[in-house]
């Protein structure tokens, strides 16, 4: 018989409930009438006949409705509905209990859901490529370039001889930009990739095709794929876009395809136009032999099935040894082979922070669940009598357990709705208080994945705290109305409270360590005066600024314009600004001092440097310790001058005055220029807020082409720093008009130096804020949990306390009784918590700045705080125990 027919009959009964009931009773009425009529015919009096007919039918007429519903499979529904009604009535009767329970779970589920939405992209969601877990990034690393990279000179060799990968590919390591020079000129991001790039990543263009063999060779046709966004904005999804030409940097480029909507470059840089990386393969293959490195690449591969990262790393070892031959011997030791997952490459150090946040939010959830279970257990205990009664009236064990689960599910459903709301609010707050480009914040949304996560967590919770109260069988002795001592319950609850205390201590300790670390980060000496400084970062395009002279002229004109702007006191132009770690750097031993033997080579020893204009040190407030600052005259002089940081000066010239000494900065290069040291400046923070500070030197950028053409793509970006007493709200728009007056198409990033420093501290701030929040929630929940257990114990032992007092126990002795019980829980919980916290702080030591992972203050203050709060939570039930009136207590028996 068909399931469909059954379903139809079931649904009919559900949705036409009244009709079904009427039909059942009509049919039975007809039956009764017919039978009674037959009986009357047999000579039985009418009244008696009706009575007999009813008796013959067995169950009373009104029960037949239920019998019918059961027959059509509605028993489960009916019972569940009645359980739900019963549950709601129960919660309604005790609103304080219901609110506490739901608030607790809302906090727990809300916290973990919000964090899940923050860390999902970093930890769990697959990258937007098919089988992305098999994609890896590989190459060399060195202290100057900790992100792995490859050179054209060995890429083809690796690609030919490698074993562990299905395919290898590469993109240009240089992040490049280009200009669309048609009507409405705009500035675009245009990375270049090998022909093997899209197939290796498993990306199919939504329109058109990948590059062909001719197109990624030198002198091939100029073609490009465009991004989905550009297709939308510029061409309105016109399918005729293929074979159209774009004017890019003055060249005609034919569009051969459109990238899919969610496409991301493996290094996450923006992409508007994707060019073929035109490489002369033959030249690259021979480059190594000639001592040349070839172009810089970022290389990627797709692992063969069954090959692990470790295995791949091992198999690439011999190829790496061969590659080392092309590296100059004096720096060979600095280079290492790196094979890591693409996810690691993309997420960098955020992953640890993400795990910390996720772990902390799960701890809060556990604490909340333990509280909820504790509350339900306590209520279960006070409902023993009711359950025993129901059991005596014929409710099966299964029925009672189901009732408990229905109630738990009811609570979970309400909580999960509230939690999604709470999560939404929390995310809004986070987004509002952080810059949107903060990597963890940028991807935090309440989406289907996040909501399903919340629901699955709620299901698990339901299982957890629904099972606990259900495990005990109601005993008929409970009918007598005495409160039973149920040891198993009490032990379970006490275990849970100790666990809560332990987890809370871990959260508290981490929170305090992070707060202290963050304070150190904020209050450290940066070596610069960042107040009132506004910066404008400008990258000049190849098309409009082809020569070093034109770049130089642009910044000179801009400097002239802003010099007399609102409230401007100082202006400087440099290629980068501290304390960000994004500056150029060189190896320490490549500094050459005349008449001295070459500097000792220490792997990983690097020196930062910047190209600056004469006002740089003054604008940033970096004091000159010896010699003099760069002057405007030196800018047009033929001599190259240099200022050393104090740290570098004392390393190079420990015993002598460096002023007037000469230094060569690119020592292996025989044509390297000679510089004269004219001053020594104070140290500044230059490795990020938490990074290691490097020795540093400043080069004056003179009005000469060679000073503007030294670092390839780097030299196209400059930062103009202005100290202005005008408010940024006035100054920033004004500055924008000044840049636009020189070149309206030029993209410019304007921000205050303060805000870029704050952005550097964004991740620690996020981490500190959230972990502190979780610790506070945990503390409150643990206190509530402890209070609940003790209050219950006191109620349970009221009689006993009454007897003790009647026999002469003093109030103090009763207080001690409760405190003794409480202290045992607190001491156990804190001891375990202390061990866990100690382990956690050591694992997370690299996230700490200026605080030791076994920071004494933390490991004293936090247990003290926790114990203090716990004793406070003990005090209330203890006091009510001490106030027990022996007469009342004894009479209640």
């Amino acid at each position, binding site marked *: *018989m068909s399931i469909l027919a*059954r379903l139809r009959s079931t649904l009919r009964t559900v949705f036409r409930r009244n009709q079904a009931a009427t039909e059942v009773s009509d049919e039975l009425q007809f039956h009764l009438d017919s039978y009674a009529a037959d009986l009357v015919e047999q000579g039985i009096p009418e009244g008696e006949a009706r009575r007999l007919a009813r008796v013959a039918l*067995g169950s009373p007429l009104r029960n037949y409705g239920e019998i019918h519903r059961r027959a059509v499979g509605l028993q489960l529904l009916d019972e569940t509905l009645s359980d739900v009604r019963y549950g709601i009535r129960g919660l309604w009767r005790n609103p304080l209990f219901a609110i506490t329970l739901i608030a607790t779970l809302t906090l727990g589920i809300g916290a973990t859901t919000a964090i899940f939405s923050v860390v999902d992209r970093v930890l769990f969601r697959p990258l937007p490529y098919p089988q992305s877990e098999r994609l890896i990034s590989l190459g060399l690393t060195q202290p100057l370039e900790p992100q792995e990279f490859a050179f054209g000179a060995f890429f083809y060799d690796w690609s030919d001889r490698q074993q562990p990968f299905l395919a290898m590919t590469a993109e240009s390591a240089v992040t490049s930009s280009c200009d669309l020079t048609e009507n409405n000129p705009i500035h675009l991001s245009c990375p270049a990739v090998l022909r093997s790039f899209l197939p290796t990543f498993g990306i199919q263009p939504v329109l058109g095709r990948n590059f062909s063999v001719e197109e990624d060779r030198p002198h091939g046709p100029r073609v490009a794929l465009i991004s989905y966004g550009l297709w939308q904005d510029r061409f309105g999804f016109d399918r005729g876009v293929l074979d159209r030409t774009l004017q890019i940097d003055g060249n005609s480029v034919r569009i051969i395809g459109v990238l899919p909507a969610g496409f991301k470059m493996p290094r996450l840089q923006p992409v508007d136009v994707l060019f073929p990386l035109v490489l002369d393969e033959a030249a690259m293959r021979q480059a190594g032999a000639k001592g040349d490195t070839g172009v810089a690449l970022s290389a990627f591969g797709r692992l063969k099935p069954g090959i692990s990262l470790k295995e791949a790393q091992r198999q690439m070892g011999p190829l790496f040894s061969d590659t080392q031959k092309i590296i100059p011997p004096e720096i060979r030791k600095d280079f290492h082979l790196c094979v890591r997952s693409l996810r690691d490459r993309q997420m960098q150090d955020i992953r640890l922070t993400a795990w910390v946040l996720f772990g902390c939010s799960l701890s809060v959830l556990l604490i909340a669940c333990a509280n909820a279970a504790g509350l339900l257990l306590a209520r279960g205990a006070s409902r023993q009598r009711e359950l025993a009664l129901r059991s005596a009236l014929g409710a099966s064990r299964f029925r009672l357990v189901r009732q408990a689960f229905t109630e738990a599910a009811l609570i979970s459903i309400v909580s999960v709705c509230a939690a999604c709301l709470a999560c939404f609010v929390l995310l809004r707050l986070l987004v509002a208080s952080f810059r949107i480009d903060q990597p963890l914040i940028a991807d935090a949304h309440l989406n289907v994945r996040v909501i399903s996560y919340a629901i699955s967590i709620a299901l698990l919770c339901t299982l957890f705290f629904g099972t606990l109260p259900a495990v005990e069988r109601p005993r008929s002795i409970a009918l007598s109305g005495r409160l039973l001592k149920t040891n198993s319950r009490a032990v379970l609850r006490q275990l849970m409270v100790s666990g809560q205390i332990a987890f809370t201590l871990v959260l508290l300790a981490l929170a305090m360590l992070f707060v202290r670390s963050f304070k150190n980060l904020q209050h450290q000496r940066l070596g610069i005066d960042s107040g009132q400084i506004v910066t404008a970062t400008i990258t000049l395009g190849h098309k409009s600024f082809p020569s070093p002279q034109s770049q130089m002229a642009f910044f000179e004109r801009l400097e002239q314009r802003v010099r007399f702007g609102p409230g401007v006191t100082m202006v400087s132009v440099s290629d980068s600004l501290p304390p960000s770690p994004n500056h150029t750097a060189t190896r320490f031993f490549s500094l050459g001092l005349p008449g001295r033997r070459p500097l000792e080579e220490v792997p990983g020893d690097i020196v930062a440097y910047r190209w600056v204009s004469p006002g740089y040190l003054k604008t940033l407030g970096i004091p000159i310790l010896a010699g003099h600052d760069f002057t405007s005259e030196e800018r047009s002089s033929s001599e190259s001058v240099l200022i050393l940081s104090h740290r570098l000066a004392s390393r190079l010239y420990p015993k002598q005055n460096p002023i007037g000494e000469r230094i060569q900065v690119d020592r292996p290069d025989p044509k390297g220029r000679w510089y004269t040291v004219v001053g020594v400046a104070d140290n500044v923070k230059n490795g990020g807020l938490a990074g290691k500070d490097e020795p540093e030197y400043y080069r004056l950028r003179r009005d000469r082409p060679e000073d503007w053409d030294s670092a390839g793509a780097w030299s196209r970006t400059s930062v103009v720093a202005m100290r202005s007493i005008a408010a940024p709200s006035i100054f920033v728009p004004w500055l924008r008009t000044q840049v636009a007056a020189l070149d309206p198409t030029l993209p410019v990033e304007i921000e205050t130096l303060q805000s870029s420093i704050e952005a550097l501290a964004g991740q620690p701030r996020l981490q500190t804020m959230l972990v502190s929040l979780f610790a506070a929630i945990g503390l409150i929940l643990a206190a509530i949990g402890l209070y609940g257990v003790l209050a219950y114990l006191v109620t349970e032992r009221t009689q006993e306390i009454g007897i003790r007092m009647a026999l002469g126990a003093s109030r103090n002795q009763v207080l001690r009784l409760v405190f003794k019980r409480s202290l045992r829980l607190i001491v156990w919980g804190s001891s375990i918590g202390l061990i866990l916290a100690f382990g956690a702080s050591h694992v997370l030591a690299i996230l700490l700045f200026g605080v030791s992972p076994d920071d004494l203050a933390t490991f004293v203050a936090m247990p003290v705080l926790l114990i203090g709060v716990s004793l406070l939570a003990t005090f209330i039930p203890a006091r009510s125990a001490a106030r027990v009136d022996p007469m009342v207590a004894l009479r209640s028996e």
Partner: protein
Amino acid sequence: MGKDVDVLQGTLNLLILKAVSLGPLHGYAVLLRIRQLSGDRMEIQQGTLYPALYRLEHGGLIRGKWGPSDNNRKAKFYTLTAAGHRQFAAERQKWESLAEVIGNILGAENSPATPALTAEENA
């Protein structure tokens, strides 16, 4: 009453299907028909009839339709559906073979062992 025969739960369905297979019947008429077919030797407990009818209807074996009764009142008449026909045939087949086997067992004389077993023993 001596004519009462206990009706096994499974056979009740079979009897109802048989009764209904002869033409549309309302609930009370199903009782009367079974009594009549049994030669007054079997009476169905009224309390068990309707739950059985509900289950059969829910299972799609019989279909209930409201229509006028002999004395012109509204009554629910049950007919056998196609699925009911198939089920009835199958149940009947099962019942008959079971009855035959049990009848054989009960009717067997104290005879020598079956030929097969004897053959094996001889071997």
